[in-house]
């Protein structure tokens, strides 16, 4: 297979209109599976969370998990969808070893939620409305591990291991309508949408939405049409897009690849592609010779889902403050400009700052720590901000120590470093590293006198009333005390000693 011709991104945007579509699978964090009572905890020993139903044993039957339906309805409501008053599950029939019944039970043409939207804010503040086609319930498959063979796929593998713990875990699939007119911002819109959806679902408390653990998975559909033509192109469906950054990169790559195909006068193949994390490219999946015929039909083992209007309204009443409502409230409470709020959101720091504020810190201090120093630390370590080994409560304590004068900013950073290095709670780090501010005037006066003596010309200026010159002496004292002096007190002492 020859490498695809890639067209420069700006060139693509000049000549083509991308049309995006996103399908996001969210694993619900219900205690039990979609159609049986098995637990859903992540990371258990293989095949320990199974029963006759989720193993598809002969004679076993499904029973719908009410909590999963509730979660689906709440997601639908939060996405401004209409909730279907009646709907059936269907069977999607195909053979695959990780699917115990060789059909997947899924809401096919009767989804529980339809016709919604999600407003997505881009980095510069532009708001894009993404229309939601539907959100429907289905069950997850088991996991296959193909051993041997070059590709890690079932074809060519020596043998395969199957883990059915995940089989039957409830999934919600959220499908957007086609998102047109995003132009060069298509990659950013895709990422912003998935981010907004993640935040929304997290706020509902119905899923962990961890892309790294697979509890949120994204398929990116993309097609190009010649600029201004309005002719819909053939789309590709890219799977295995497992991080927010990958969402953006997958869109970008596919745009360049599609343009390459179209420029060569060829036809884009309608196919499933797999995103390659390491190279930020996509690889063709097995090309379907015919369109897969899943022989859908209504699941006869289940009765229709018919949520009453009362129940739906009751669930609407349980919706928490949604992310955009919360952002508006926080902006007002913390008195932030639009830009400041955006920085906070873009740095993925809003939740962390809010938690730090909840732990007692002033919002300004909390903000500046997370957005600047800690963001740098996260960058250096190559982890996301929330993966840094410091909790909002620990940071709040450091801030408190600064406010009470027990630490200055420089020392505070060292305390934070200590916490990040795993040296314990902030107070322990202070004690172990001996980082308390020197507040003994006697020791400070000696250091001040020494510094004044070392720089007589500066001392003379201060004595002559040029108080601003004290800065140089403060610096020298701080250096001499290894930063452990309270700079404000040092300045006062300098002025005192100079009789200025």
């Amino acid at each position, binding site marked *: 297979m020859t490498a695809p011709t890639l067209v420069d991104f700006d060139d693509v945007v000049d000549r083509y209109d991308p049309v995006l579509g996103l399908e996001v699978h969210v694993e619900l964090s219900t205690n039990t599976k979609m159609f049986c009572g098995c637990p859903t905890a992540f990371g258990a020993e293989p095949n320990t969370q199974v029963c006759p139903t989720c193993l598809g044993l002969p*004679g076993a039957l499904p029973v719908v998990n009410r909590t999963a339906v509730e979660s689906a309805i709440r997601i639908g409501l939060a996405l401004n969808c209409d909730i279907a008053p009646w709907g059936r599950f269907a069977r999607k029939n195909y053979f695959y070893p990780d699917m115990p019944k060789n059909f997947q039970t899924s809401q096919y043409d009767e989804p529980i939620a339809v016709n919604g939207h999600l407003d997505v804010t881009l980095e510069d503040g532009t708001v894009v409305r993404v229309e939601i086609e539907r959100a429907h319930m289905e069950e997850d498959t088991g996991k296959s591990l193909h051993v041997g063979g070059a590709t890690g796929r079932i074809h060519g593998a020596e043998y395969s291991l199957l883990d059915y713990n995940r089989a039957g875990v409830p999934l919600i699939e959220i499908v957007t309508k086609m998102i047109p007119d995003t132009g060069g911002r298509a990659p950013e819109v895709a990422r912003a949408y998935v981010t907004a959806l993640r935040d929304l679902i997290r706020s509902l408390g119905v899923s962990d939405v961890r892309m790294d653990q697979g509890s949120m998975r994204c398929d990116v559909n993309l097609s190009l049409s010649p600029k201004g033509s309005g002719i819909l192109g053939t789309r590709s469906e890219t799977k295995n897009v497992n991080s927010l950054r990958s969402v953006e990169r997958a869109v970008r790559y596919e745009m360049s690849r599609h343009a390459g195909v179209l420029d060569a006068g060829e036809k884009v193949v309608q196919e499933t592609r797999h995103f390659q994390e390491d190279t930020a490219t996509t690889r063709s999946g097995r090309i379907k010779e015919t369109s897969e015929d899943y022989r859908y*039909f209504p699941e006869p083992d289940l009765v229709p889902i018919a949520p009453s209007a009362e129940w739906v309204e009751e669930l609407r009443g349980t919706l928490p403050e949604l992310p955009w409502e919360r952002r508006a409230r926080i902006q007002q409470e913390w008195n932030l400009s639009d830009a400041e709020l955006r920085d906070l959101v873009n740095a993925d720091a809003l939740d962390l700052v809010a938690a730090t504020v909840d732990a007692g810190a002033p919002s300004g201090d909390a903000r500046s720590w997370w957005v600047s120093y800690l963001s740098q630390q996260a960058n250096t370590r190559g982890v996301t901000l929330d993966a840094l080994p410091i909790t909002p409560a620990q940071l709040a304590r450091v801030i408190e120590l600064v406010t009470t004068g027990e630490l200055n900013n420089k020392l505070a950073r060292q305390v934070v470093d200590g916490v990040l290095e795993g040296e314990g709670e902030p107070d322990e780090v202070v004690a172990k590293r001996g980082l308390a501010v020197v507040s003994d005037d006697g020791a400070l006066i000696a250091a001040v006198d020494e510094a004044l003596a070392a720089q007589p010309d500066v001392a003379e200026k201060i004595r002559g009333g040029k108080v601003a010159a004290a800065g140089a002496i403060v610096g020298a004292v701080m250096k001499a005390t290894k930063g452990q002096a309270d700079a404000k007190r040092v300045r006062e002492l300098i002025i005192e000693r100079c009789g200025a």
Partner: protein
Amino acid sequence: MSDDLTRLSAAELAGKIHSREVSAVEAAQAHLDRITAVDGDVHAFLHVGTEAALASATLVDESLDAGTAPASALAGVPLALKDVLTTTDMPTTVGSRILEGWRPPYDATVTSKLRAAGITILGKTNMDEFAMGSSTEYSAYGPTRNPWDLGRIPGGSGGGSAAALAAFEAPLAIGTDTGGSIRQPAAMTGTVGVKPTYGGVSRYGLVACASSLDQAGPCARTVLDAALLHEVIGGHDPMDSTSIDAPVPAVVEAARLGAKGDLSGVRVGVVRELTGEGYQAGVGENFDAALRELEKLGAEVVEVSAPHFQYGLAAYYLILPSEVSSNLARFDAMRYGLRIDKGASAEEVMAATREAGFGPEVKRRIILGTYALSSGYYDAYYGQAQKVRTLISRDFAAAFEQADVLVSPTAPTTAFPIGDKVDDPLAMYLNDLATIPTNLAGTAAMSVPSGVAAEDGLPTGLQIMAPALGEAVMYRVGAAYEAARDAADGSPFAARTPEVKA
């Protein structure tokens, strides 16, 4: 002694066990001995669980000896269980090679209820593979023979359960009825078989043929015995979403009431479309005689029409294979059952296993169903069949406005010779013409012996159909007719069953 016990009805046997005249172990042993004596010829059982049966009976005896009240009206009575319901202590094969030797890790709800009621499960009975068939000839393990004539079929798919009753190998049996698999074998063997209202008995642990049609039900030699068993196995099951959350109809009371012989005020509807042409002479004669008997009992016999029943068979043979094609997809050698390790890939192993593991009728229906559900054909086939289903339900609803129960012959002929129709699927399918509408509508029906055909001396059946959850009136009519027929014959029908002759 032993022989006597096997001739008793379940109610009579239970009476003797509960009064401690007979022990449950004696009752079990008598039937196990009978199985040993005749099942080599009849082949009603695929598996006999001697140890499990005796262990279960021993527990019942211990409990009764300790003065504890019987766990149910049938505690200690032996039963033959169709091999389509899962059992942890016996294999469950569904009459198929693909599940040969499979030992389920869980009990079906019906199995659990039988155990809780203290009923002794003797073993698992033969059936057409995956309950697809009307003669039990499609069992992968060889046919069951009709105790009335070992050269003939016992009906199907539940031929094993019906034959076990007729051969006095068990006084009770469980069948499952997807298109007549309880009622048609009952008619062929001169026994009683009941298809309860869809959702009346849990399907959890019933290896599915067609989910929207399958229903487990009681089989016995008398209407009262069937009623007693019905109350044991019926009722809501949270493990089955399609199970009805309503009390089990009071069928025992209704059967006792009916046995008193008064049907005045009961309207019996004769379904015009299920009478007339196409029936063997003796079947028709016995049906007409039954109608006269019902009138004598005080029932008002009226004619009703169900114009869409004629499309029932066609709709059934689209809906059933469609569901079968999906339900049977799970038999892929990956987790349980047969595995033919031929080929290098999972797909090849699946294909080789299904090729070797499924018999011709199962394959035929999988192919039919796969085709009927294919895109482009769905609306014309499955969709259209569902519409017919709705029309048939409406026919029933209209008919039940005019009558409390509907009646017809259960099957068009008496038991046919083994091998007669096995190569002619359409002729085989016609056996279920009269029974299928009930499955499509989800209503209830039973078959009660209506005598023997004059021309061949083989039993015929009267089908009594009732609305959903209308089993009480159905049992009442069945018991009244049975009592009148027995009075006329001077003996219970079962007593007319000939001794099994090889």
